[in-house]
């Protein structure tokens, strides 16, 4: 073990003085790690060069409040973008925004409002989500149905590689095919390939108005049938969501936004499918309480969903039959929220998920062809590992080669890509 590693904190202080604003990160199970917060390209380069030379493994993080523990367990140091927050360039005439990775999505959304723009994703906690963290986690907003996933918003980025060099991919332009889209590789890479230090996003017009439509529905089947009818309308909803409620019923929510006249027209179409409904809305305001409620959909009961199911739209009902069937047999009532248009479902099991039920769900859902992601402590032992991509072995090998190509010395933690048992 290198000397720096034995007393990393002192070594960092000796090398960087106060420049890294060292703190201590404390995680579950009494785990604690030093957390450094470099600002600017040069500081990132130097920190990574130090880490490489001293064989210290680093996880780049945003605010680092909710990290995948499988990654944290592999490292000795967290390097946070929390203080590297500047807006580099907002070009209203071109509809693009460039900012440092630590900028919070909430502040960026405020910043571009003056120029009449909105950004996506609209995440549950925009003030506590960094641009880099959202990109590296491939985080969605509730507005994905209309605007697409975060990786499609990314025009380009600058990244700090494991050897400390700073490189760029893509640019700030809305159209550009010069060179490889290495930035696409970084989106969703969970901090395992490089540090995103700066990124450029495409922007959208700030809508004049918005409206949230809410209606009740009976069974799971009714809710999904109604959602399909809504999705078949000639409208461009921001979200169509179905979630089960405390009793036996479901709630359907539709969010519309855009020009006043268009929203009015679309609302009339929605009412044809949902004759009994309530509406709230008005001027587009990201702070509006009901929009907050929509974006907090993913944090029902105050926690992230332990299970995310991704499938084809036509197969969502099959997946929910499996979930509800297995839970019923175990006398458990799961909370479920779905984006039927995206074929995405989140499931919460309450305080306890019996391991055998978790395993049964894992087995049956995968056998029926649905993709799963477990997160947090409720993942059943032996269930789908969030760090091990559920893709054919040749694809995992290509991923392994890419990890090795960008980070040959393993300065960053890795996904689990080898095929050894």
């Amino acid at each position, binding site marked *: *073990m290198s000397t720096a590693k034995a007393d990393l904190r002192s070594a960092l202080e000796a090398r960087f003085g106060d420049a890294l604003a060292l703190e201590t990160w404390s995680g579950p199970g009494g785990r604690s790690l030093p957390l450094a917060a470099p600002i600017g390209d040069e500081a990132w380069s130097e920190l990574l060069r130090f880490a490489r030379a001293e*064989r210290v*493994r680093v996880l780049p993080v945003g605010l680092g409040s909710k990290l995948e523990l499988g990654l944290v367990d592999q490292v000795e140091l967290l390097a946070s973008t929390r203080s590297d927050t500047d807006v580099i360039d907002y070009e209203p*005439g*071109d509809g693009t925004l460039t900012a440092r990775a630590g900028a919070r999505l909430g502040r960026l959304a405020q910043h571009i409002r003056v120029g009449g723009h909105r950004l996506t994703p609209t995440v549950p906690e925009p003030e506590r989500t960094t641009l880099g963290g959202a990109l590296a986690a491939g985080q969605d907003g509730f507005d994905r149905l209309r605007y697409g996933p975060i990786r*499609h918003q990314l025009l380009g980025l600058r990244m700090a*590689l494991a*050897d400390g*060099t700073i*490189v*760029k*991919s893509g*640019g700030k*332009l*809305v*159209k*550009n*095919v010069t*060179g*490889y*889209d*290495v930035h*696409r*590789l970084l*989106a*969703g890479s969970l901090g395992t390939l490089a540090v995103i230090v700066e990124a450029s996003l495409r922007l959208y*017009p*700030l809508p004049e108005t918005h409206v949230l439509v809410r209606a009740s529905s009976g069974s799971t089947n009714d809710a999904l049938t109604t959602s399909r009818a809504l999705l078949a309308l*000639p*409208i*461009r909803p921001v979200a169509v969501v179905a979630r089960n409620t405390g009793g036996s019923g479901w709630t359907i929510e539709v969010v519309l936004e*855009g*020009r006043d*006249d*268009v929203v009015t*027209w679309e609302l009339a179409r929605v009412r044809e499918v949902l004759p009994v409904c309530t509406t709230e809305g008005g001027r587009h305001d990201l702070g509006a309480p009901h929009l907050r409620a929509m974006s907090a959909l993913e944090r029902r009961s105050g926690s992230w969903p332990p299970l995310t199911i991704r*499938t*084809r*739209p*036509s197969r969502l009902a099959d997946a929910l039959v499996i979930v509800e069937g297995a839970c019923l047999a175990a006398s458990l009532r799961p909370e479920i929220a779905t984006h039927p248009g995206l*074929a*995405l479902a989140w499931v919460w099991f309450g305080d306890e998920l019996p391991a055998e039920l978790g395993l049964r769900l894992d087995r049956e859902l995968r056998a029926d062809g649905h*993709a799963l992601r477990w997160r947090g402590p409720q993942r059943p032992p032996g269930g789908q590992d969030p760090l091990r*991509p*559920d*893709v054919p072995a*040749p*694809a*995992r090998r*290509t*991923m392994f*080669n*890419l990890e090795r*190509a*960008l980070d*040959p*010395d*393993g*300065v960053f933690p890795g*996904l689990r890509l080898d095929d050894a048992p």
Partner: protein
Amino acid sequence: MDTKLVAALRAVVGERGLIDDPTRLLPYESDGLAMLAVRPPLVLLPRTTAEVARCMQLLAEYGVSIVARGAGTGLAGGATPVADGVVLSTARMRDVLEVNVEDRFARVQAGVVNVDLSGLCQAHGLAYAPDPSSQMACTIGGNVANNSGGPHCFKYGATTRHILGLVIVTHDGEILDLSEPVVDPDGYDLVGLFVGSEGTFGVATEVTVRLVPAAPVVEVQLAIFADLDAACDSVSEIIKQRLEPSALEILDKLTIEAVEDSVFAAGYPREAEAVLLIEVEGVETEVNGIAREIRTILEARGALEIRTARDATQRKKLWAGRKGAFGAMGRIAPDLYVADAVVPRTKLRDLVRRTIEICRERDLRLANVFHAGDGNLHPNICYDRRDPDEVRRVLAAGHAILEACVEAGGALTGEHGVGLEKLAEMELLFTADDLAAMCRVREAWDPERRLNPGKLLPMHACLEIRTAALPPAPTSLDT
């Protein structure tokens, strides 16, 4: 080429799947960048993914390079053969494997022609949005490899936003089946990375594409201007006002003349200096509202006349000139050099002017027809490839245009790719470190660099990383 290898390949693809007769190799000598031509020793035309995989295994054993080829309409020399390498054409891989209306996707073999897929979707009220002007010929595999654009990509985004899955055969003949259309990639986004890799990562054999519902109402506006600047400024203003038409295309005077003299004649007025084609789509209210606001901008910028069409036949007629523009220009010069660069949309007018000056200084005829809404310029320079001096001036003008665009915050290519054409200019935009990182990514896919060698990345940038004086690094970290 080794006769044993040729025999083994013939056994895989059959007599119709292999061309080695020199007279039949001629059409494969170049792509749309006709000034670069190399006669390949062998062309393979496999039918299935399994055949592609078997061929690639054999070629790996013999260390032979492979240039994938769709329809050869690329304009950057991406499909130009390499000496001693084989061309692997997808021309016999034209099956549509699945159109899933309920889940809005289609799965096709890579050789399916863009327009055939679009036509098939139309019957279901759906559309495959990317529509390169070459869509009558170009293949979905070529579109994937180049991340191609088209007029409607202004609203819908380029090819990459429409690709849900791929089957890729790797350098050594392994099959990566990533064809299932999932909401998000699991692990790294291999599909997203592959799109735009110009045949250097592998051969795409099947493509899963996203389909979008066809818009209920579509209006095309054709605005006629006495001044190219005013057309450019109208586009910048439309973007600035955050209006969202689905397409914004400009044609200049020389293009208009060429179109009107051709079978693509669309009734564009010959006295115009520029026409701006705008398409707005959506529901009736939306189209009415946006079209009205755009009209106000066009009038304020001095449009001489604004024609509109909602009826499908009329719309098609207004579009015919744009879609046929490249074909029509065949009449005004033996050869056409189609440059491709992107600029910030706030700087359209300045950069279009600059391209005109650059060509005028070099005594070259220039026709501009471009995806103005995306800031994607296509200065088309007329020339005769038999005149070496003219060829030299054309290349110099192309370089000067790219320099000007990069200086203005633009990029080297908006849709045609780097290919062979823009290798030298990559260093205008990227540092040696940027390029070295890209080389490493490339080598993760193709360690021997046998796939489309010498394209997309300047060779010396890749060679340098092999010999780079990196400090000795540990091979693994002790944890």
